[in-house]
């Protein structure tokens, strides 16, 4: 059962904070520059941030690797092909269906899957898909959460009751289960909303599903912050000057949510990548033959005895990506407010 994700603010002794500021010579610096300065000092977070960038760059280079090194693409079957490795001609897939293992050469560096597709190439293209789904879904979650959290927190009353109960309903389902149900239901007919039609095999389907199922985990803390912010003097001042609710939300409330959103973003991306992998592994996320780390894991599970690398390598990529995002995300959180404990809890 999900527990309340919380923005826990711990208020330290003002004297101690002032001493800290003096020590860091931060007087006069804006919160963003201050955060950047703190982040730069966190070498572990920076190292993991660098690792994430490296993974992104490697995945973006997939077409180069496919064209110039592996000489294939992520979809091409090589079931009856042969390759020459160290002077020996070998089947890409043997007549009994066993695919070639890692060659550690340009072609089939990590071996082939059951359809004779180059696993290394699929791994890189799969990374692009996983990252694209993760980042897009996290952005979708943030947009929806801002909308829901701000409306519910600012207006209170029946909009709050309505939206909060809707979030409660969403929260009542474990994200994976809800994602599975939606993914399976939308796989056949796709999604039709008015004039907009999304095909069942479109990447937009897992992006939308993941974006929606994660909304409660971010919208609730945002709503809490808005509830607190709407009572602040600067909001009252804006109201007294005749600003409309929309103006207040955009000019007064939203800027004050920025740091929370920035802190949440890498953590949401990590969660979205994990959820995409789980859904794709279970056949309700990215549709085959599109590669993603989840689908590659799913393909590899059948050959876990003779070709464990087919599951280990995409698994490792997932671990590294999620770990790097989480450690970097923690660093960002510490940088923006070292006294706050903003965290995602499932």
């Amino acid at each position, binding site marked *: 059962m999900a527990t309340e994700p919380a923005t826990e603010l711990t208020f330290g002794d003002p004297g101690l904070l002032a001493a800290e500021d003096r020590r860091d010579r931060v007087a006069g610096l804006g919160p963003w520059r201050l955060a950047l300065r703190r982040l730069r000092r966190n070498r572990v977070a920076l190292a993991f941030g660098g690792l994430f960038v490296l993974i992104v760059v490697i995945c973006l280079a997939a077409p180069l690797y496919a064209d110039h090194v592996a000489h294939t693409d992520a979809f091409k079957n090589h079931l009856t092909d042969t390759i020459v490795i160290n002077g020996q001609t070998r089947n890409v897939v043997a007549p009994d269906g066993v695919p070639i293992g890692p060659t550690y050469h340009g072609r089939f560096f990590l071996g082939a899957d*059951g359809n004779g597709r180059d696993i290394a190439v699929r791994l890189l293209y799969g990374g692009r898909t996983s990252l694209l789904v993760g980042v897009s879904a996290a952005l979708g979650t943030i947009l929806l959460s801002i909308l829901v959290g701000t409306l519910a927190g600012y207006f209170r009353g029946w909009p709050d009751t309505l939206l909060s109960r809707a979030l409660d309903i969403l929260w009542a389902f474990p994200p994976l289960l809800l994602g599975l149900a939606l993914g399976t239901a939308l796989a056949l007919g796709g999604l039709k909303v008015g004039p907009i039609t999304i095909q069942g095999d479109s990447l937009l389907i897992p992006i939308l599903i993941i974006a929606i199922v994660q909304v409660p985990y971010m919208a609730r803390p945002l709503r809490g912050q808005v509830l607190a912010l709407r009572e602040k003097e600067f909001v009252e001042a804006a109201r007294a000057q005749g600003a409309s609710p929309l103006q207040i939300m955009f000019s007064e409330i939203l800027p004050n949510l920025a740091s929370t959103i920035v802190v949440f973003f890498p953590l949401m991306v990590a969660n979205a990548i994990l959820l995409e992998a789980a859904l794709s592994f279970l056949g309700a996320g990215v549709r085959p033959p599109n590669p993603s780390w989840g689908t590659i894991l799913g393909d590899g*599970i059948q050959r876990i005895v003779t070709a464990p690398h087919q599951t280990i390598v995409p698994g490792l990529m997932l671990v590294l990506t999620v770990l790097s995002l989480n450690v970097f995300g923690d660093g960002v959180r510490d940088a923006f407010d070292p006294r706050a404990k903003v965290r995602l809890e499932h």
Partner: protein
Amino acid sequence: MTKLGNALAIAALAAAGVGVAACGSSSSGGGSGSTGGKTGGSITIGSVLPDSYDPVLVQTVQGNQPLQLVYTGLLTYKHAPGTAGNELVPALAEALPTISADRKTYTFKLRPGLKYSDGSSVVASDFEHTIKRLLYLGGPFSSFSTVIEGAEAYQTAKKASGDISGITSDDKTGQITVKLTQPDSKFLFAMALVSAAPTPAATSPFKATSNGSIVGAGPYKISVQNPTRQFTLTKNASFDVPTIPKPKLDTIKVVKETVPKMTQDVINNKLDFMTEDPAGDDLPLVKAKYATRFRMDPNPPNTYWFFLNESVKPFDKKQAREAVNYAIDSRALQRIFGGRLQPTCNFLPPGYAGNGYVKIDPCPYGDPNGPGDLAKARALVDKSGYKGMSVTVWGNTKDPRPAIVDYLRDTLNQIGFKAKTKVLDQQVYFSTIGLKKTQAQVGFTDWFSDFPHPADFFEPNLSKKALASSPTFNFEFKSNPVVDQGLTKLNPQDPQSVADEWAKLDRAVIEDANVAVYGNELSTTFMSERMDFQNCNGVSPVYKNDWLQFCLK
């Protein structure tokens, strides 16, 4: 009407069946007998589950295996190991029917005192009710019953309470008379299918059921805990039909599992049998390490092919269909099947040798054991004018089918189409692509023999008659006139006596590229150590595995 004449006719049909299966005996050797094994006990089977729990709507092997134990017909196939399983024997009927001299009237008589598993009596009029349900609901095997006088009119009228003039029954005497519009040599085979098994008129509604609520008069009764997760077969204590052996197992629990999971569970003796074939890594592993409880058989005779929907672009043109046939490389598909595929050019499987199968040699699309001719295929796609057209390849989740459809996607892309795949769950796949409105262009399909008659392959899959069913198995959504005419001409005759004519139909289907055939599969039987594998593996030319023959050590 003469009993002798009937007996001879039926013996000829049964012999044809034996002949069929004899050609398709076990590849791994070793006979099986049902004499050993203990009585009693319970087993658990892993399955992808039936496509339907309604006896008139079920169509897959996974559905037929359990439901044939629940719904017993007037006739059935002998529950005996090996090729003897092709023999037709009376079941709820006390004897094989008497057949009129013009071979158009069949008279059955029910055994006295028969009861359904809920205790209600089996009456003769239940048979007509079942055939009505089959036709009214458009069950996948309904086309086999349209030869009955008045059946087509009943189906067209779409009125549940209507009458089928060709069926008369007398509940007092238990006599059932069926009049056909023309002689039909496969009629008795079709009457032994689950879809023709009598069910109580009072509790079998004219709507599809999904929870096993319809009772039968078979050796087991069914209890569906969750249609998509689990069901249980429990011994029917009141079952007493002398031609069908009493069940050895008390209960058979069937659970849904993925193929890799069920393989591991059979290896670890958590499951006692799996309805599917081990795939991927598991096949060589099982073959090597568990040979004493694993075997491969070409039974039931089967064919695997890609359907080509001729009612929609691009396969409405023969060039496009021929292009697919030229492009297919059965060696590639053989690898996907883990070596269990035997390439072929025929629509009829080799198990029908002497019964319609004559190897098409040379194959019009090149050696089925050789590579595909991609250059010729590309040229044909160019000629068809459909180059660059989007094509969706349909398949289902059961291993290795996703890999099969991915192979076809890649091949279609290579010959000039823009192909993508759509993979559905096995349980809904055939009922989805069998609807005309789905407009599935091309995709995976296969056929396992339901009974030893070549019409079993041609009629449901390629005939005009099959298009009356919805969903249909005729995924081409058009029929080849040669097939329709051939079925009209050949159906009345003993298939063995017109085997050459059936072979001509086979050739016509291939030459017209109505389908893209690529092979015949060797089926597997894999059991736990608890099972008496030697004596009770139940390998059957009709049911793949006859669970009634299963027993524990």
